[in-house]
């Protein structure tokens, strides 16, 4: 494994991806520093999810590189499963395992990927559940939890593996409005505790308040990026203005 010295936790270089002739990522460069919270916004179909999914190779990029802590995920000798646990992922639809309790969901990879004995895995999983405020629900099955609680368990599932960065793909889009707040609060606490985060979301208020940097994507490319104040205040590009204008209406 070649380890490069880098100040970035996650670095995507020239990422390309096509689906059946349609180019969805047109050479995207994106770098996230330690403890940074980077927000990705953009219209539907602009390639935000694809970008995120390429960052742990759930989607196989056609070209370019993804570096996590300096390790090239695309390199031949890289153990992708070992690297994936360093990149936590939270999905729009939670994707909790319905046949396992909250604790089972969180401890599975601890046991099978990290190799912790059952007991230690249970303790670590419980600690992760505690961090999202759900230690009391450890024995509950997903069907017995509200959407917001399920998503927080999903966050704990990723968090328990002590990832170097966490990816969030529209984590609140599938939630009833009154449940969104809990999940955002958990994310904010996570960020405050020093977690590096890359977030795709339509929660502009949250972006304005919590993001260090906002990236605007359109048509498979990054159009512009900057501080929330800059992007929401005086967006440079016409397309960004149009997109934000649409949202405001």
């Amino acid at each position, binding site marked *: 494994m070649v380890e490069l010295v880098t100040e970035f936790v996650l670095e995507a270089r020239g990422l390309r991806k096509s689906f059946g002739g349609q180019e969805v990522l047109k050479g995207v460069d994106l770098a996230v520093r330690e403890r940074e919270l980077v927000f990705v916004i953009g219209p539907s179909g602009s390639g935000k999810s694809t970008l995120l999914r390429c960052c742990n190779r759930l989607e196989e990029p056609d070209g370019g590189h993804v570096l996590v802590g300096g390790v090239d995920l695309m390199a031949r000798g890289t153990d992708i*499963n070992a690297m*994936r*646990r360093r990149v936590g992922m939270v999905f729009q639809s939670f994707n909790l*395992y*319905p046949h396992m309790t909250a604790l089972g969901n969180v401890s*599975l990879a601890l046991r099978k990927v990290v190799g912790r004995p059952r007991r230690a895995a249970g303790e670590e999983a419980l600690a992760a559940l505690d961090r999202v405020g759900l230690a009391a629900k450890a024995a509950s099955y997903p069907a017995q939890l509200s959407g917001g609680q399920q998503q927080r368990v999903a966050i704990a599932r990723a968090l328990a593996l002590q990832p170097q960065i966490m990816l969030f793909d529209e984590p609140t889009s599938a939630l009833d409005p009154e449940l969104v707040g809990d999940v955002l609060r958990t994310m904010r606490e996570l960020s405050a505790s020093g977690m590096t985060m890359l977030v795709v979301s339509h929660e502009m208020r949250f972006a304005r308040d919590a993001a260090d940097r906002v990236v605007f994507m359109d048509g498979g490319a990054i159009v512009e990026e900057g501080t929330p104040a800059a992007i929401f205040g005086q967006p440079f590009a016409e397309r960004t203005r149009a997109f934000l204008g649409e949202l405001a209406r």
Partner: protein
Amino acid sequence: MSAFAAQFLDLSIMWQAAPLIRRGLGTTLLLCAIVIPLGLAGGLGVALLSLAPSRLVRWPLAVAVDVFRAVPPLVLLIFVYAGLPFAGLRPSPIEAVAIAFFLNTSSYYGEIFRAGLGSIGRGQSEAARSTGLTGAQTLAYVVLPQAVRNVLPDLMSNTVEAVKLTSLGSVVALPELLYSADMARSLTYNASPLILAGAIYLAILWPLVRLISRFENRPAGDTALG
């Protein structure tokens, strides 16, 4: 009526036949212990291979599955038992049963597993892979347990069929339950041993059959005929 009872329910004849039938039952259970695990493993293999990206794998497999589902199991058994010797292979009755019913039951189990795997959304395996689980671990811990649960009634009902299938072993002179009972019948000129064998099959399979009915007749929420 008493002629009927004497022909079917003669307890002393049943008692006489009991040792023979008990040995037959042992063989039947042995056959089940061979046929069911083999079929389950083969079926799972078929289901997994049918997800293979290459058509060169999927198409021949689909044809084979349809062939083994189209040929009656007894025909398959006779073909293996009486046909293979012409190719220089001489399977014993038990080997013939194992081969024929492996081909038959794994085709059926395969279709069931395939439906089960298809019922699990892609998000489940993506979530598992995103935590670093390997493909095999994802299958074993995340996808398969849910898939099996979703098709449990079908798996059980196919298992009942597999147990019933072992009775065809009698046709190739394999001394299982039905063969033993029929031998006792021909020795005593009385059908009571067959009834005894039937009662044993019932004792084994009725609980399963009841359970399957329970599953299948779970009414859809609010039906008038609950």
